[in-house]
């Protein structure tokens, strides 16, 4: 970094869409590329003030979860020997949520560019879809059939092989 060490920030304040403030230490915030780029940018400018980063797309309950994840992963950032423990934690972390929360969390991870959380969410969703039938997927995720009868017949015919 070009700027002097005196201007490096130790904390940032993140504001959720419902106007709650979260004080986040830099190491934790750096788990999100979006926050990291904001911090880097401010440091380059040599600002000494605590910066406030408003995230107009993320509600406070979802932001709390993202930050919980970032905090845990920041703890493990320096040693990869404890991978197994972290993996276990990741799994337990996602298991707690309903699909709606998982959905919002996935979107927030995508928006905040927290790649490992996004991967984790995508894998978790894929794993939960894997063993479901189309009918079950339709019910659980409430997906409306918007095909015309002709379209539906076409695609059924086309993809019949997948149902053997």
């Amino acid at each position, binding site marked *: 970094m070009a700027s002097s060490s005196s201007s490096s920030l130790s904390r940032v304040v993140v504001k959720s869409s419902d106007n709650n403030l979260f004080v986040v230490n830099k190491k934790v915030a750096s788990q999100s590329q979006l926050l990291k780029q904001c911090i880097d940018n401010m440091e380059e400018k040599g600002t000494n003030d605590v910066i406030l980063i408003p995230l107009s797309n993320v509600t406070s309950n979802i932001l709390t979860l993202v930050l919980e994840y970032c905090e845990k992963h920041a703890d493990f950032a320096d040693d990869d020997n404890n991978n197994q423990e972290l993996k276990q934690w990741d799994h337990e972390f996602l298991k707690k949520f309903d699909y709606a929360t998982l959905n*919002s969390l*996935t979107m927030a991870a*995508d*928006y905040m560019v927290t790649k490992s959380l996004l991967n984790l969410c995508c894998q978790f969703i894929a794993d939960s879809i*894997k063993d479901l039938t189309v009918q079950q997927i339709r019910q659980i995720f409430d997906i409306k059939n918007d095909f015309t009868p002709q379209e539906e017949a076409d695609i059924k015919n086309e993809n019949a092989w997948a149902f053997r």
Partner: protein
Amino acid sequence: SLSAILSKFRPKNRNEKRQKFDSSETNQDFISNLPTEVIEDILKRLPMTKVAQMGMLSRRWRDCWLSHRYLTFDDSFWCKHQIAGINDKHDWEKINQKINKILSHQNVPVQKFHVHLPNDRNQLVAYLSCSTWLFKLSKIGVKKMILENLHKLEDMPFLVFSCKELMKLKINHYTITYLPRDFEGFVHLRSLVLSKIVFGHGVFRRLLAKCPKLIELRIEWLIGMSHLVLDVPTVEYLTIKGDFDSIDFVNVQGLKCVSVGFFHPANFFMIDAFLRLASSSKIQIRIISTRTDFGSDHLCLEYNEFYKSNHLRRVRITGIVGRKIEFNFIEYILTSSIVLGHLLIRVEGVDILAKAKPSTGADFKSITRAQI
């Protein structure tokens, strides 16, 4: 000024395109409102047949299926075309038509193209229109390709060499007799896995010379090659499985990590080659780890570049089950490493530990030099 910075970031993160997301506002169905890239990220983790099934959910999902860029015709795909549940009999003709059809929808670069040829004993000729597919892929572009041949050894389709945009390539059980005269190289290739390949004279070397950006190279069980010559300056991660009479590291200056698996665990020619590599001061090596697969066992060595004394300083061996051959190996490492400072041996499995313990003690009594 902060808002200016944030707004600079926003287009980059495509913020404007996104709807506000909040669990309480999700009245639309779950996952359908995720950004397209995220849906693609989820679908690429599923078997392709599941993605095809999901194409019947709604128009949105049909479109996702039709634009699915991860084409995986692996064994789970072949299973769907099994004839009357017989394991080694598939409907090759139908599969051929199916792949033709799916590829005909594609007009944007394909992320992944994976074809598996099963070992159908009754199928005399592996007739699939591979060349047609590869021709199409070479036109629209393909990033990652896996050709996995469990059927009889055959010539690798030449049109693979026309897929210039490849970043990852894995080929299994093919013959490559020569390179096409007009082959310009795989200029974007980062990862290359060569498994059970028969190379024509000099082809291996010339192929690697045409991969200027190669970072990961895996060589597994090459057929009929006894002398391995590696001239791969860009490669950082190297895996070698199988035995060679000699290995010549001509140019491996980028190497960070080497993994080795021996078929005959007593092949110390190869270990010697790696010890020499580790002690050569010309080469910058961070870690070399050699991994030996005796069934489920793993041996793992670690050399550390921070000790520039040109000798093996740290060894980590894991997965010991107490076999004689493993102690021979350890002994060999100990006798050939004069300044060994750290030796870590991890024994796996409780039952095995009990068995291994007495002999471990006995073996190490005779070796007093190293601190264990």
